[in-house]
């Protein structure tokens, strides 16, 4: 497992810095639709930031907090999207059910693949995660009659929410949908916060710090890697389901290994040793990608340079960089 920094430097406090920064984060997120327009953003972009932020935070439970490397989280993201798509396309017109099914599909895959991989470590584990993600990609790509093949699953749209007799129409209204995403995001981050404070969460951090010592203490390491992997895929598949609802389609690119790489770079770019880092990373990456791809045909080089620059110059991510500055 990874030993990234000096001991103590990365003591994980899910709500480090007390209440103030939580207030700031949520104020920014809640008010986003009000000021997005002034800086050239739009509701769908804001939703995308939250969705990828959630995916990256989910990955980070594994990468940053358990110290296990997955380079294949596109699988669970994409399966979440396809699960939601299947419900809306073939079964019932219900947004909550779509999300539940997306989670189910993504997490079942996480349980299965995790069981096959949990005894492998290090670079071998990472290679297997890539391979399993590629299996899902090829299945989605080749199983034309069910998944729509290359074009993906189309011809569905998210359904209005029914709360008793009250109907929230998230279908045509981007701002309302943003708040719906934010609501799901809030539940998920709350759960992650609780998880990291629980004995299970502390055990995960212990594995990251020193898996050998954890083993000596009688902690079944493989099983905990498996559990952390499943939890991580759970949150990433929630994000995937929301992604299908945002776009009103699910296509194989959501399963492609490029998405896996993007999710990892978001976590690292923001700072994988902090709870909120991946969200910041997702915000920066999604906005930059959006800007660059509309500005130049050479956007691939710019994205590549972001990857290289983060690795060589900001390995602790933006939050790690800022913290070190202020320290």
């Amino acid at each position, binding site marked *: 497992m*990874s*030993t*990234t920094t000096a001991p103590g430097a990365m003591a994980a406090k899910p709500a480090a810095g007390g209440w103030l920064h939580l207030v700031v984060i949520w104020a920014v997120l809640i008010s986003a639709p009000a000021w997005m327009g002034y800086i050239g953003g739009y509701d769908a972009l804001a939703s995308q930031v939250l969705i990828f932020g959630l995916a990256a935070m989910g990955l980070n439970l594994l*990468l940053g907090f358990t*110290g296990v*490397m997955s*380079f294949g989280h596109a699988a669970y993201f994409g399966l979440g999207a396809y699960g939601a798509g299947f419900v809306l396309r073939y079964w019932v017109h219900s947004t909550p059910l779509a999300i539940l099914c997306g989670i189910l599909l993504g997490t079942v895959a996480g349980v299965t693949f995790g069981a*096959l*991989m949990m*005894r*492998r*470590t*290090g*670079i*071998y584990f*990472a*290679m*297997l995660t*890539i*391979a399993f993600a*590629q*299996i899902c990609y*090829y*299945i989605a790509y*080749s*199983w034309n009659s069910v998944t729509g093949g290359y074009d993906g699953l189309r011809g569905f749209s998210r359904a209005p929410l029914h709360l008793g007799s009250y109907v929230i129409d998230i279908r045509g209204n981007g701002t309302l949908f943003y708040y719906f995403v934010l609501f799901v995001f809030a539940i998920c981050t709350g759960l992650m916060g609780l998880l990291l404070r629980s004995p299970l969460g502390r055990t995960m951090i212990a594995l990251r710090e020193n898996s050998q010592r954890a083993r000596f203490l009688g902690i079944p390491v493989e099983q905990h890697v498996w559990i952390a992997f499943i939890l991580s895929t759970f949150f990433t598949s929630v994000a995937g389901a929301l992604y299908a609802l945002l776009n009103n389609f699910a296509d194989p690119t959501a399963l492609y*290994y490029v998405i896996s*790489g993007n999710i*990892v*770079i978001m976590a*690292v770019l923001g700072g*994988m040793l902090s709870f909120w880092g991946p969200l910041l990373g997702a915000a920066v990456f999604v906005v930059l990608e959006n800007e660059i791809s509309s500005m130049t045909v*050479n956007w*691939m*080089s710019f*994205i*590549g*340079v*972001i*990857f*290289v620059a*983060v*690795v*060589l110059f900001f*390995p602790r991510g933006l939050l790690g960089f800022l913290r070190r500055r202020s320290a």
Partner: protein
Amino acid sequence: MLTLVLFNLTNGIILGLFYVLMALGVSLILNLSNVINFAHGNFLALGGYFAFSLAPYLGYWGAFIVAPILVGVIGVIVEQTMIKRVYPRPHVYSLLLTFGLAFIIQDMCRTIWGVNGLPLSIPNALNSPLSNQFFFLTGYRIFLVAVVIVAVAALFAFLGFTRVGTRIRAGTFDLDTVSALGINIGLLRALNFGLGIGLAGLAGVLAGGQIGLNPNMGDDLVLPSFIAIIIGGIGSLTGTLVGGLIIGIASAVTSIWWSAGSEVIIYIMMVIILVARPRGIMGEEGMMT
């Protein structure tokens, strides 16, 4: 039917040989440096394009020799300027680095040589089919098989019988001890990286003559070459050789009956290996597993 089976078998062997060249390069780098090289397919493309641009000056045969060496040299430069800085760090950084490099190289190829495919013309002597019934046995394919066999034999001889090769093999098992014995492992890793990348360059020159050149030509070969390594057993180059051939043949033979299955079969085989024999066909117990 026999012709069809033979046709697919030949295709499978050719495909397998490309997987072998790629996977051996990835495997060399993985074994000694613990880096998964996502950009390997882009170095392959670079090899093809270099041959394309050099051929007018050096002729096909000159380009055939020089292009892979040039790609290998670029590999060494990339290793020395960037990759070596992430060796002491967790795997996530080397993965992200090579991932970013893949984007950059692909975009460079696209900008320099264009998005559209280019043909890499091969000497006429290699171009003719050898028999009418077995139309798929072109001279070029025979040549390709021969080149790969020579290259692989040379690689194994180098690793088996030269001093540097022995050090690379020793480093695969225990790099710290090799370093403690006074061997410059920085240089060793750089050489080894260049060697692996050079193999990708050679694969690119060969692939260019077979399917033409385009900026994404290596993409479809990268992930299967990872699978070849997993199936063959991480840490074993012989395993990688076997793994690459097996998945190439399996995928071509599967496509006789199930055309969409040619990719899926590779992964099915990987899962079977993982369940039945996690260390891979030739992998040593405890090697990086």
